[in-house]
């Protein structure tokens, strides 16, 4: 089972007593504000969790894997996530069985 926005809204309802509509809206807006910051060129730093970092990649040669035809991969901007120290430590000790 994966954590979803619905689970997060439920938690705000339980722990803070926000009503369900407010909780749902706030969770939605939380992710939207991060998207807005990133699309306006700002990196996002959430201490204790991690940083969302934008990277510009220049055009590079690529290939159509099906036909083998060479096609350039255009210049692009991507989002990378760098987990913070605290999150890394908490996750490192996860003693799950095998890979996910």
């Amino acid at each position: 089972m994966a954590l979803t926005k619905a689970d997060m809204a439920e938690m705000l309802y339980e722990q803070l007593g926000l009503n369900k509509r407010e909780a749902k809206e706030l969770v939605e807006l939380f992710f939207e504000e991060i998207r807005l910051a990133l699309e306006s060129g700002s990196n996002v730093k959430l201490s204790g969790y991690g940083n969302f970092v934008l990277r510009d990649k220049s055009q590079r040669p690529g290939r159509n894997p099906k036909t083998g035809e060479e096609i350039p991969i255009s210049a692009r901007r991507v989002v990378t996530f760098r987990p913070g120290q605290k999150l890394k430590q908490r996750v490192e000790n996860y003693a799950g069985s095998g890979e996910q």
Partner: protein
Amino acid sequence: MTKSDLIERLTAKQPHLAPKDVELSVKIMLEQMSLALASGERIEIRGFGSFSLHFRPPRVGRNPKTGDAVTLSGKYVPHFKPGKQLRERVMNSTHIPIKE
């Protein structure tokens, strides 16, 4: 954008909520996300992305001071895969310079 910037922006957009509740909400959401990952659970946010754990196999490292070989056990690291909407919105903003 930092966590406190994010809290300010959310507070401005949700004037019907007490600022203290918005601040607590952000902290609760990040804690819930950390806890999910620390217990090996994935996070799936449509349009934003998914967080999962990647396994790093055990390896032999070296003590940089003495040069002695040390066995490092396998560990899990958090991984983020941006969702379609986030990827596309960021791609369309390459004309805006990246700010720290």
